[in-house]
């Protein structure tokens, strides 16, 4: 119902009374919440001496030298991007098949499987890294990125199955039942009837999986090794070697966070669903 139409209800009167102070308070909170990130973006544009002086100058001539310095880390950024995109595509594809089976077909211990996927996603990455690092060394796969790619794909599938199942559950079963009465097999009904209607949900799921794979730090640090290193695994080196160059780090974080912010904007209507494994349908 539009706001204009229900303007006379008790709820709306209360809303008008409480809404304005609440909106102001919310604005203050949003600015306070964004301030650390904005301050770091400001640092990325500050000349090197202005980034570490106190009191910090607010007005200065912007210096984009820090962004130019990021060119040295381009191979790691490309590796991160390739890994995130590849594992997202593979993960969402595999998860779509699994989610369809769990949503529509009778699967023994389906509830247990869903719990298993949830548990896999929530298992501490550092606990997972110990045997994975050992296996990587025993199999001679260090520096290939293969174990990291498999780990990301597995974790992506675990998240995507939950999200996609919630989207598939919303597509009426009658559509594919009607198609099957027309002579389609189950697989054809899935491909031609369900899949096209699941595409928006798959896109939202892919966005969340991409953000996860792009952001992941623990496994990247503990499993990736030269020559295949991802950008997050460079962070301790950059912080430790002879004191950090804060403008370069700030530029790196800004570049790192920009796609995440963009994707957040794209999926803004589904954030609650994404963060709640598909439970909240806001």
């Amino acid at each position, binding site marked *: 119902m539009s706001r204009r139409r229900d303007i006379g209800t*008790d709820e709306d009167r209360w809303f008008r009374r409480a809404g304005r102070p609440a909106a102001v308070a919310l604005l203050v909170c949003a600015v306070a919440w964004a301030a650390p990130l904005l301050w770091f973006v400001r640092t990325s544009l500050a000349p090197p001496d202005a980034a570490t002086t106190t009191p910090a100058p607010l007005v200065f001539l912007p210096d984009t030298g820090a962004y130019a310095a990021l060119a040295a880390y381009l191979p790691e950024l490309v590796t991160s991007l390739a890994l995130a995109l590849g594992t997202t595509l593979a993960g969402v594809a595999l998860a779509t098949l699994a989610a369809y089976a769990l949503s529509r077909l009778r699967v023994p211990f389906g509830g247990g499987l869903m719990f298993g996927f949830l548990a896999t996603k929530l298992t501490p990455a550092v606990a997972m890294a110990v045997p994975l690092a050992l296996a990587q060394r025993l199999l001679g796969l260090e520096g290939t990125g293969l174990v990291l790619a498999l780990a990301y794909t597995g974790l992506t599938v675990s998240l995507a199955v939950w999200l996609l199942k919630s989207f598939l559950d919303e597509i009426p079963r009658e559509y594919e039942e009607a198609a099957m009465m027309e002579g389609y097999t189950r697989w054809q009904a899935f491909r031609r009837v369900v899949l096209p209607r699941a595409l928006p949900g798959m896109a939202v799921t892919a966005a969340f999986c991409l953000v996860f794979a792009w952001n992941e730090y623990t496994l990247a640090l503990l499993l990736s090794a030269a020559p295949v290193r991802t950008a997050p695994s460079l962070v301790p080196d950059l912080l430790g070697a002879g004191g950090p160059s804060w403008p370069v780090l700030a530029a790196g974080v800004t570049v790192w966070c920009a796609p995440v912010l963009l994707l957040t904007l794209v999926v803004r209507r589904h954030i609650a669903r994404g963060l709640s494994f598909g439970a909240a349908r806001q």
Partner: protein
Amino acid sequence: MRMDFTTNPYRAAAGALVSRPPSIRPVRGLSDRALAWILLSPALLLFAGLGLGPLLANLYLSLAPAGPGTPGGAGFDTASYVSVFADPGLRRAGLISAMYLGVATAAEVAIGFALAWLCHSSLRRGGTWVVALPAMLSPAAAGLIWSYLHAPEFGVLSGLAGLLALVDPAGPAGSGFWQLVLADVWIWSPLFAVLTLAGLRSVSPDVEDMADLDRAGPWRRLWTISVPLALPFIGLAAAIRLASGVGSFALAHVLGAGADGTAVSLVAIELERLAFDAGRKDTAAALAFVLAVAALAATGGAAWALRRIRAA
């Protein structure tokens, strides 16, 4: 008997929704159950490799009598578990982790609820993504941001904290502990805010109408309608937070690297040191198994909350 296309609603829907390609012939052979297992098998393989595999590998590594793969080793040895629970350093790390999780989660519930209530009161729909932004950022990026803010020489917050004497660096957990809590609250409060808001918005208009008829004020509505109905959502956020927080590593690691190279001694940080620096694989595997079991317990809570939300 052939059914009439115009009177059968399913067939009518089929006619409207799908255009039947002329070449398609019904293919029989695969039962639904067989198809289900075929569709599930790639995901199941990954689950076995990444969910069950590491758990069982940690169990094996922690119980192997004289090191993993030793020929002739028989039975199992629980010495690594004894050292996990008896080691004073690990016990201290467990205490600090519990304090960190408790303080941070309590603050996040309170702040998240306040933010959600503000959004619920001031925004009819949309707009909440601004509040949710930090929840989407990488903990490593957040760690870098907060390292800069807490830098001893020029950090905005370190100067402020020193000015107000907020933090006692010689205290039991040190100033790094509170820096960690602050950064954690910044990242995770939005999760609580977004999920609590989803709970608040899930309240049926009928319930609101009944409250109107009873002339219930905003305060009474909050405590008798909104909070009880939002509880499963808050519980879900808390369970997700606890499951993730049990093995919280990235934020503490980056904050530690940005300070003096010493991260706050959380259990996950100690686990990484044991496994990758000290080479004590058996103790590290035992600790990893204990962490995974703790996370599994929290996952059980999350699964319960998910069921409640879906059933509502």
